């Protein structure tokens, strides 16, 4: 039986045409990126206001930085200075005679000056803006954010153009500094998104970050969170807590994934095998490292489960309702309580199930004490080794602590029944191998006998630790330390808890930890004899 088209449907279609149809210039974009999509799709470019056809509108103001020499720059790296020229700011994406941008297609070989980057950036910013605004009522993003694509510099030393191999959200005050350096008034004291491309790092591959909707959405979500929310470590009874920053990353992964209805947050284009997957079982403390993108997967995984429970719209709404109340240091635990409060209000029948998700993920009351496993991540995965903040970047209450800054995570070690001596060998690196400055950090170990975590009290305004011992190991080889423990506090068959303590000013990356237990005492001097 043939069925007629209801009048309401026709009206809705006509209204829809009014939004996207005649009068709206069309353009080609990847729905996500060149890896996920075999071809581009045609979309309308909404909210354009630029009189000259430039991609400038109510919610995005896009510029290209093409590979023609602009202002001279000198990057001061202390030991050396790199001179060169900044790229030139232009609007290269312009309409054809029909007012469309369909002549702009992905380049066969990206040389970092493609107008396609501008089109991708403009479309995907406005698309996500409209989603956040129309679906969840978010209004503080109703302003044009500046976005620069293909930012690059001609480096005299290499005699070539080098792209910025990353994408960033730039808050207001730093954007003002950029404006002064760039020298033209495209950043008039407003926030910005700055995107580059990679032609220098083999680990990243040939990637243009503005070709990836997920990366655009990720940075735009950081912009939506803003420059004064979820940016600093918190402090709790286990020491510094990096979960606020991880939470920022979790939202920047989750909301784009929810919008695109895929749990592959990082996407396969810009991150490759490091792509983040929200359909995971990660939990606190087992999967916490101190690296905020990785730790964020604990929270974003919980949010993805919440989405399954409540449905996309309801889950996203409660998450936004909670998130906008967060401050600089809202932790996993506080966030989970706030989200559950919103679930209780909007879907009370689901509150118990939602609470179970957050409990199983360890977001509620995580003790950040995990079972130790040996690892050795020297090599390309070094960035994913646990990080211990240095005195300069730590919460001020720890910056002046006598022993140093505790790591974000503690480790529990079970001693064998015949263990009389334990050696903990660890490799703390500071600086960057890429800059030739990688060195052994000034890192000790805090030790506590038994199964309980090392805790901190702050009654005097300074941290007081429950650790029984804080000691730095003996230097081993070029970069490692080895701490050997023996004595009456080392109880065979019992547990031992340790935490890395950074006495240096810079953050240290712990690229390996190896524990050796022995029934034989080799060190004639007992090192662990006080544990009351």
């Amino acid at each position, binding site marked *: 039986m043939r069925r007629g088209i209801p009048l309401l449907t026709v009206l809705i279609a006509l209204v829809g045409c009014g939004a996207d149809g005649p009068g709206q210039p069309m353009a080609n974009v990847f729905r996500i990126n060149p890896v996920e999509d075999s071809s581009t799709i045609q979309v309308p470019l909404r909210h354009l206001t630029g009189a000259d056809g430039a991609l400038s509108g109510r919610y995005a103001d896009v510029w290209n930085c093409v590979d023609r020499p602009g202002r001279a720059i000198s990057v001061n790296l*202390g030991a050396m200075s790199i001179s060169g020229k900044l790229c030139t700011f232009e609007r290269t994406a312009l309409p054809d005679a029909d007012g469309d941008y369909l002549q702009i297609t992905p380049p066969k070989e990206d040389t970092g000056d493609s107008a396609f980057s501008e089109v991708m950036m403009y479309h995907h910013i406005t698309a996500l803006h409209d989603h956040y605004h129309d679906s*969840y009522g978010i209004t503080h993003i109703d302003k044009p954010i500046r976005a620069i694509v293909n930012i690059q510099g001609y480096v005299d030393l290499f005699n070539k153009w080098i792209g910025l191999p990353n994408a960033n959200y730039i808050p207001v005050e730093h954007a003002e500094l950029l404006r002064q*350096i760039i020298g033209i008034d495209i950043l008039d004291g407003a926030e910005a998104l700055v995107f580059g491309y990679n032609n220098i790092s083999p680990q990243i591959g040939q990637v243009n970050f503005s070709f990836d909707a997920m990366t655009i959405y990720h940075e735009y979500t950081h912009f939506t969170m803003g420059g004064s929310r979820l*940016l600093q470590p918190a402090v709790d*009874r286990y020491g510094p807590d990096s979960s606020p920053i991880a939470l920022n990353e979790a939202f920047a992964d989750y909301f784009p994934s929810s919008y695109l209805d895929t749990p592959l947050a990082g996407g396969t284009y*810009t991150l490759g095998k490091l792509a983040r997957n929200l359909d995971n079982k990660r939990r606190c403390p087992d999967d916490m490292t101190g690296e905020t993108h990785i730790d964020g997967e604990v929270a974003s995984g919980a949010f993805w489960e919440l989405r399954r429970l409540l449905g996309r719209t309801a889950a996203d709404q409660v998450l936004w*309702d909670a998130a906008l*109340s967060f401050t600089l240091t809202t932790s996993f635990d506080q966030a989970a309580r706030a989200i559950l409060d919103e679930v209780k209000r909007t879907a009370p029948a689901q509150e118990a199930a939602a609470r179970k998700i957050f409990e199983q993920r360890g977001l509620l009351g995580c003790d950040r004490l995990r079972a130790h496993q040996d690892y050795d991540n020297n090599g390309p995965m070094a960035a994913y080794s646990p990080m211990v903040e240095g005195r*300069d970047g730590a919460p001020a209450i720890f910056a002046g602590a006598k022993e140093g800054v505790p790591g974000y995570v503690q480790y529990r070690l079970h001693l064998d029944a015949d263990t009389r001596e334990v050696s903990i060998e660890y490799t703390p690196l500071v600086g960057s191998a890429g800059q030739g400055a990688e060195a052994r950090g000034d890192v000790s170990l805090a030790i506590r006998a038994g199964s309980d975590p090392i805790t901190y009290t702050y009654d005097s305004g300074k941290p007081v630790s429950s650790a029984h011992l804080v000691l730095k190991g003996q230097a081993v080889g070029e970069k490692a330390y080895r701490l050997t423990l023996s004595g009456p506090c080392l109880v065979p068959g019992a547990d031992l808890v340790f935490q890395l303590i950074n006495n240096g000013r810079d953050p240290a990356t712990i690229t390996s930890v190896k524990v050796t237990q022995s029934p034989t005492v080799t060190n004639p001097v007992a090192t662990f004899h006080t544990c009351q």
Partner: protein
Amino acid sequence: MARWVPASLCLLVAVEAWAAPPRLELQAAARREVALMAGAVVSWPVHRLRPAMIRGLAEATRGSDDESRARSFLQAHPALFGGEGSSLAVRDVQSTADRRVVRFDQRYHGLPVFGAGVSVVLDQSDRVRAVSSEMEPLRLPSIQPGISQGAAVGAVCARLDREIPTLFNARLGILAEGTPRLVYRVALPPTVDPEIRWHLVDALSGEYVGWRRAAPAGGR
């Protein structure tokens, strides 16, 4: 026999007593205030004198706009959000379909308290449903800097082993974390410091205090 205490010691004790806030008293007052809030669910970090988050509220407000409504709530709870010399400047009002969040930045005798403020969550009936706060009571002996902006930038560049740039962003304010102190907050251009961060320099001693993130790490 009368025992004499040196005058300098008396002065030192007096100064210390004045400078150190009565921590336990302030904390106890905040706890009493929270206890009066029916149905409140409280998150109270172990090192803080005041709670970081209070939810489960349904407090009526007074006022003709969101800022005044939020202020009426905050002024009704001085043990949680007040303090000698402290004031609140509205930063913005953010909203979702269900909520309006009025965000305030803390000031101390007119100076910004970096990173400190209060977010008040209003519902569609103008009731306060939640509040998040980074605001702690402050007491500083002086808000007169002992060094110039330029000297503060110099301290940052010395720490980073960089030449002093002609462009920078430096602002005097208060760092409330740990022991509160007067600081300059300095941002350097990316050609000098590629990290998007703030540097903090003690505005009395010129000591480099540390850095804080100003934005999330790169999107990868």
